């Protein structure tokens, strides 16, 4: 006789949140990004124990502690390296990587480019506020060159890093821009990124109200991208390079073989693993 089947409870966004309360500044965009991540996971009904959230260092890198999923709060700039290892070893897990612009594009800049190249199936969510918030307001790679403050009087004068174009050029197969003030839209983009087979890069404009209070104006400036998602990287790059930086949506989605599809299965025991190194 078959056992009666107990219907599985529907997971809600709250089921993915831990009991730890965020310590971000009130007004920080990272609150809604956390909410968008949990909404996306609920949308996809992924069991929390089948999801791992990996981060580096910085305000936004605190996210793993605020979720009920497996988490790894790692070394500064090395979140993608840790996440890559995890996904290759445990392809059954859904791997999300979270962090900020300093962690991802400066300290972890090299890992970012090579993660895009490898196209491991994971989703990288960068909360970009154009500043190092945790260390009190230094210019980051995405800071505008003329942002004047006491730590860089008159601005750094250095051209801003353009993560979306770098991601495209390096081979990311899903590139999107989202906005923290649009938590439902951001949740949809994150869900699309998770569903996408390959490396999905999502830059979320997440205002830092403490060190960049002028970013409160972003909510008046952002708008949905007026064009459909393209699968042509050259077209996507041209659009991204010439837009006003306020377009939100999935800007590029291509089809490129994932790392797993190009490599054999992960060795199941040590002997198999050793054989791979035999000369």
């Amino acid at each position, binding site marked *: 006789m078959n056992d009666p089947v107990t219907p599985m409870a529907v997971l809600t966004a709250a089921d993915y949140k831990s009991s730890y*309360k*965020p*310590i*971000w*500044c*009130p*007004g*920080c*965009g990272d*609150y*809604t990004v956390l*909410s968008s991540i949990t909404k996306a996971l609920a949308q996809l009904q992924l069991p929390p124990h089948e999801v791992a959230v990996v981060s580096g260092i910085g305000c936004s890198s605190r996210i793993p502690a605020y979720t009920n999923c497996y988490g790894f709060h790692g070394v500064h700039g090395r979140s993608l390296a840790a996440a890559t290892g995890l996904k290759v070893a445990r392809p059954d897990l859904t791997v999300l990587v979270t962090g900020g612009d300093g962690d991802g594009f400066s300290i972890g800049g090299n890992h970012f480019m090579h993660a895009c190249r490898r196209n491991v199936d994971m989703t990288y969510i960068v909360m970009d506020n154009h500043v190092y918030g945790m260390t*009190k*307001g230094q210019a980051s790679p995405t800071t505008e060159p003329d942002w004047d*403050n*006491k*730590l860089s009087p008159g601005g750094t004068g250095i051209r801003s890093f353009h993560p979306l174009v770098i991601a495209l050029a390096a081979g990311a197969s899903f590139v999107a821009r989202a*906005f*923290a*003030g*649009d*938590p*439902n*839209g951001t949740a*949809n983009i994150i869900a699309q990124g998770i569903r996408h087979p390959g490396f999905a890069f999502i830059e979320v404009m997440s*205002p830092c*109200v*403490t*060190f960049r209070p002028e*970013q*409160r104006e972003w*909510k008046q400036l952002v708008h949905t991208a007026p064009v459909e998602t393209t699968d042509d990287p050259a077209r996507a790059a041209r659009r991204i390079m010439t837009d006003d930086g306020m377009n939100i949506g999935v800007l590029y989605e291509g089809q490129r073989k994932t790392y797993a599809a190009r490599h054999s299965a992960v060795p199941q025991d040590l002997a198999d693993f050793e054989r791979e190194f035999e000369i």
Partner: protein
Amino acid sequence: MSTMPRTLEDFMAQALAMEREAVERYTEFADAMEMHNNREVATMFRTMAGYEGKHAEQIKAEMGWKEDPAPPAGGFGWPGFEAPETVPIDEVHYLMQPWHALQLALGAEQRAETFFGELAKAATTDSVRRAALELQAEEREHVELVRAWLAKVPTPDGDWANDPDPPRYTD
């Protein structure tokens, strides 16, 4: 108005979602204020979350729903990025006072009132129009309640945001 609910059920599901989002945001604010030891404002946001939660339960009871209905495939259509009764995340400050919190609540209730007014005008069925007008009237009442509450709290001094030990030393 991006999408006009066609049936009473769709309309009330949207109204319920609006209340749920407001609860979520006020709760986020309350938690954040507690973390920053602004207990008075934290309590106020917690109270607001409680009120919005009651409105949500009222809608469910009126409709005889045991569970919240699932949102439509493309999500609900709001005039902006979020439901009108949701205060944008970046409009709070760790030193804000009850007066500021009530100003935010007032803005949210006024947006909700306008939203239902617009829906009532655009409604294509009598049942949706009646319900929208009813909810508009409720939101108008809430506006007046918040105004009455505001009259009881002190207006902040001009230097309310001055922190003798500021988080930023860059200016």
